[in-house]
């Protein structure tokens, strides 16, 4: 299992490496680009957003200023109106006069009220007795005595002839948030108040000045200098005190900065502020960065697209790399397997251009190499054959010398008959060796030759070693290479009968399974393995240059591996050599 995994990794090492490098570079690039893209667009968006919102704030400021203007203007007119002053200070004696008094004052209020912008503001005049004259009690309908004794009115008594704004959310305003502007109307002489002027707007309606500019996450609020939020499109902020917001507002106003990012109400906001000196309040714009950015920049979509692109490009990259590396890995594998196939199997030409070129060149080189090796082998073979040929046609001079010496002894002993036979055999041997230029001879010829050889040997050493020939008639016409059997016979003659002085050498030749099988057996000393080896090495060839050692080699060279020489030997029993040759009919 582990081996398999290792093998897998070995096989895919290249592609894995390239993939990892690619993966990390693509990831890094896309993460960086995505991040910086989102950041840049967020920043750009916040910048433009701030610019727009600055304009929006300007516009709201104008609207609120207009509203404020109409409150202030009316306050001045009310103060200037001498008839009103007289009326507010005057009294009545009976119901009829009271009716006229009330009617006239209401007419006055209506007159001033006509100047008011916008129409969701109400205006109220009150005399020192607490009789209030209200222009639009649909908007605000306070109880006269409550208003007269309310801290707001008491504050006006003390205040410095200016218009005071306050947010009320009490029984005075029927528990609805309202912004009430108030001013004490004072005598020019001793500054004692003779009446009060009020203008009131529902917080809901004040909100309408700016509500159109707000949206989810884009909040506007008005904050009094004491940090109390008097109006906001976020209803739950109304009435809250947020000192941090106030300090931010002061800072920003002081440094004239365009905007800054802060954290209040547990959220990150971009914060714009404008002090409205007329009202004495801060107009604050809080932009929920996350929410707004989320609405405009779809981070998820960008991330999704990047991830998608990364996946696709990795997928494509892997495909391409695979197409390039798999053939390379294949090549490597095939090349490392080369030895197993004796360098005979050419590489498969496939894959990309590079891989194909490499395979082609490799195959070309392999072919060239093969051709060269073949040529070399053939040359060697030729050389060997030539050598053998030369050896075949050559008779060891010692053999000739020994034979001639034997003949001389026989002549001296007067064995004419034997001499003539020996010379006859010897002549036949010489003739056979020198004249027969063919490489192969028939079995019959070989037997004649072997008999001659035996005769020559027997004439020299006596006939204590008998040689029998058993040849199947159908093999007589077969051809076999020259001097294939002779070395084994010679071997038997000179080495098999050293301890035993007598024995028999049998030569069997037969056709078997479409092969020519020749056996040379002796019942001599026999040998063990070591002896056999050393003998094969040391033995001098007595008759020709071809020794037994060469025979097997020679047969294989001529006919292939199927054929050759087998030797069996046992100490004390004898040796048996089996020579297998192809059946070649002449």
């Amino acid at each position, binding site marked *: 299992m582990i081996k398999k995994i290792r093998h897998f990794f070995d096989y895919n090492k290249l592609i894995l490496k390239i993939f990892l490098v690619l993966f990390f570079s693509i990831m890094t690039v896309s993460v960086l680009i995505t991040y910086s893209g989102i950041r840049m667009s967020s920043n750009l968006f916040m910048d433009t957003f701030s610019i727009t919102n600055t304009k929006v704030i300007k516009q709201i400021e104008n609207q609120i200023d207009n509203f404020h203007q109409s409150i202030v203007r009316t306050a001045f007119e009310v103060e200037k109106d001498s008839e009103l002053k007289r009326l507010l200070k005057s009294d009545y004696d009976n*119901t009829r006069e009271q009716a*006229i008094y009330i*009617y*006239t004052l209401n007419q006055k209020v209506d007159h001033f009220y006509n100047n008011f912008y916008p129409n969701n503001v109400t205006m109220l005049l009150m005399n020192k007795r607490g009789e209030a004259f209200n222009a639009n*009690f*649909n*908007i605000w309908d306070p109880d006269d005595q409550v208003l007269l004794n309310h801290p707001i009115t008491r504050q006006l008594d003390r205040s410095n002839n200016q218009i005071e704004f306050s947010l009320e959310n009490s029984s005075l305003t029927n528990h609805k948030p309202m912004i009430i502007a108030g001013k004490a109307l004072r005598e020019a002489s001793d500054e004692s108040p003779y009446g009060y002027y009020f203008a009131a707007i529902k917080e809901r309606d004040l909100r309408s000045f700016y509500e159109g500019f707000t949206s989810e996450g884009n909040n506007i609020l008005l904050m009094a200098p004491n940090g109390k939020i008097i109006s906001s499109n976020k209803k739950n902020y109304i009435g809250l005190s947020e000192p941090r917001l106030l300090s931010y507002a002061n800072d920003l106003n002081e440094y004239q900065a365009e905007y800054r990012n802060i954290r209040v109400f547990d959220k990150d906001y971009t914060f714009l502020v404008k002090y409205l000196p007329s009202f004495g309040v801060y107009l604050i714009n809080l932009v929920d960065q996350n929410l707004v950015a989320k609405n405009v920049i779809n981070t998820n979509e960008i991330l999704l697209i990047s991830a998608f692109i990364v996946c696709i490009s990795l997928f494509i990259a892997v495909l391409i790399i695979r197409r390039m590396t798999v053939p390379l890995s294949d090549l490597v594998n095939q090349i490392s397997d080369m030895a197993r196939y004796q360098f005979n199997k050419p590489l498969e030409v496939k894959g990309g251009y590079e891989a194909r070129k490499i395979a082609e060149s490799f195959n070309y080189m392999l072919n060239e190499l093969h051709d060269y090796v073949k040529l070399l082998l053939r040359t060697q073979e030729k050389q060997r054959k030539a050598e053998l040929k030369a050896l075949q046609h050559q008779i060891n001079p010692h053999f000739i010398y020994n034979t001639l010496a034997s003949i001389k002894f026989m002549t001296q002993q007067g064995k004419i008959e034997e001499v003539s036979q020996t010379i006859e055999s010897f002549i036949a041997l010489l003739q056979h060796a020198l004249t027969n230029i063919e490489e192969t001879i028939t079995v019959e010829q070989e037997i004649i030759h072997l008999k001659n050889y035996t005769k020559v040997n027997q004439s020299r050493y006596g006939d204590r070693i008998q040689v029998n020939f058993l040849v199947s008639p159908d093999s007589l016409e077969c051809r076999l290479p020259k001097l294939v059997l002779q070395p084994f016979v010679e071997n038997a003659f000179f080495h098999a009968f050293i301890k035993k002085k007598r024995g028999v050498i049998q030569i069997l030749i037969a056709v078997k399974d479409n092969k020519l099988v020749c056996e040379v057996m002796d019942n001599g000393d026999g040998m063990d393995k070591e002896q056999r080896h050393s003998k094969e090495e040391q033995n001098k060839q007595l008759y020709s240059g071809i020794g037994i050692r060469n025979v097997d080699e020679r047969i294989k060279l001529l006919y292939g591996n199927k054929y050759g020489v087998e030797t069996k030997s046992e100490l004390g029993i004898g040796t048996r050599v089996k020579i297998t040759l192809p059946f070649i009919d002449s």
Partner: protein
Amino acid sequence: MLKNVFKRFSWLLGLALLITMLAACSEDDQTQGSANDSGDEGTSEFEGSLLAWAWDQNFNVAALEIAQNYFDEELKMEIVDSSSADIVQRLNAGLSSGTMKGMPNIVLIEDGRAQTFLRSYPNAFYPIGEYFNTDDFASYKIAPTSYDGKQYGLPFDTGVTGLFYRKDILEEAGYSEEDLQNITWGEYVDIAIEVKEKTGTAMISLDPNDLGIIRMMLQSAGSWYTTPDDEINIENNDALKLALENYKKLMDSEAVYMVSDWSNYIGSFNNGDAATVPTGNWMAPSIEQAESQAGLWRVAPIPRLDIDGAKNAANLGGSSWYVLNIDGKEKAAEFLGQTFGSNKDFYQDLVTEIGAIGTFKAASEGEAYQIEDDFFGGQKLIYKFSQWMEDIPQIDSGINTNGIEGILEAEMQNYLKGESLEDVLNNTQEQAENQFK
């Protein structure tokens, strides 16, 4: 070979696939957008949300909300709550500019102002006569809600008036409950003087800027500031003369508690500063605010003018529903017809849940109308009002009521200061004719 070609171009194929997918994404957005656009233009089958304008969260708006429960179909309705004056102003602004953008499907208009709109912008409203039967409603409601023979408004609440009075104070002055049934305004003034003298409590609280009491007097006699032909009818109007005389007598008697605005007005009787409140039935909840006075209040028919044919019944206030001639009008009319126009059970709910008395006559047969009100000593308040409602003389208030009343209010001051009644009426007639002819 073919396989090889395919392999070679497979990555191109992948790229093409990617591009197509991205393109498909953005295409999706576009198709969605256009689908929304076409949705807005739907004309044949209205599926949007209806927009309604009404005032008074606890009364008219609540009535609309209850009505939705009685409508068969699934209905989306957005109700905008603003003041009556606001609605008038916004309607005027919208209708005079001619664009119906942002206008509501259903709007509540006070009966006294309806004619102004119907006559100025008849095409802006959708006649809804065929969605209900006008005979099912109190007859006095039909004139103000129709124009040129077509029914435009669906009558809603009644302004039927009654005389709320403090039984304890009047008994202290020597008046029994019977003494207050079906009296004339002259008798009322006499009683007022007596009550003030004997108990020190004012009989009535009045705002000099509100001539509601004059209207009630006029209507009881079937008379108005104008004739049905929109002629100014002041100078020779006997009913008006009598009404003004009664008014002045009341003012001179010191039996009046003067108020200058609405909260003062409510406070006057809640604090026990006034013994009677002659006004519309809708005042009952405000009277009931003074829990300490439970059981002390009674209601009697509104006094009538001492003129032949005058009835002890009059109307003050009240409003009706109108449908604007814009997309969704059929749906809106169907909605009104099925609920306010014909459903008796719905009116029982209106009475029990918000105390609104409709002008649908069959409604008074229901059980809710028979409820005895302990605050008013066990009187069947709702039932009484619904009975008086049917007696209200029908008058056509025309389009100049508010204007004429403004002039009359100013002239009234002169009358109170001592000018003769003839001069006051002549001046008023003259000014009104100058202004409205």
